[in-house]
């Protein structure tokens, strides 16, 4: 039987990997994928606690998080495509129109 800490540490390492991606990569789509990684890590923690505490509401919340993640990915990719159409790049260093 795997103890609860193993699942939580796995989720922590997934989250840290996502943070590495957001902080170091310059491509907007890679940043986007790293955000999905972090959402998955949070979901994994939810399901771990739900399973080890015997309470199914945690799984329900994961379902809600997945719905919001789907909406977020649709809108996020639409924004990336609109950015690419206007500036012909998705390098987040060159997208600075809101900076003054």
């Amino acid at each position, binding site marked *: 039987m795997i103890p609860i800490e193993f699942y939580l540490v796995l989720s922590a390492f997934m989250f840290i990997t996502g943070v590495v991606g957001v*902080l170091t990569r310059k491509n907007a789509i890679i940043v986007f994928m790293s955000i999905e990684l972090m959402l998955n890590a949070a979901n994994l923690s939810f399901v771990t606690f739900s399973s080890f505490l015997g309470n199914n509401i945690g799984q329900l919340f994961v379902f809600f998080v997945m719905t919001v993640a789907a909406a977020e990915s649709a809108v996020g990719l639409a924004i990336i495509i609109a950015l690419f159409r206007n500036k012909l790049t998705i390098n987040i260093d060159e997208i600075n129109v809101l900076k003054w």
Partner: protein
Amino acid sequence: MNLADFLFYVFAVITLVSAFFVVTFKNIIYSAFSLLLTFLGVAGIYVLLGADFIAIVQVIVYVGGILILILFGVMLTNKIQNVPIKTEASFIIPASITIGAFGGILVSTFINTRWKSMPAELANSTLTDVGHLLMNEYILIFELLGILLLVALVGAASIARKQ
């Protein structure tokens, strides 16, 4: 070591290695396909945790929906002829300091806390319970999520269309 423990290690290694490749590959297409492996590994771990409904939803929504959207995004935003689809990393040193501090705190909290946990009996399918909760106590949130998805659909189409 029984089979479930062995499968946990297999899925954990798949998840962590492919998550590492997602953020390190220079080619975005390879990153997207590593993300596929990550999502599948997480789905396997959900199965080991007894969350069958969430595992299926993970495969359908993430692998079937979000990953396809990401692949469309990659193909629509890279001029295959002119610009190579390779990208560089930067800010390695400040990022590693931040991540070291944050990750150390997170992992030590997870390890050192004494978590309360039930004696694990291998659960039946959670599908019935989740369905009852979704249709009784959380029906309002369920409906609101439907509206959220509709708004996101209209908003995405309106943002991405040609002016």
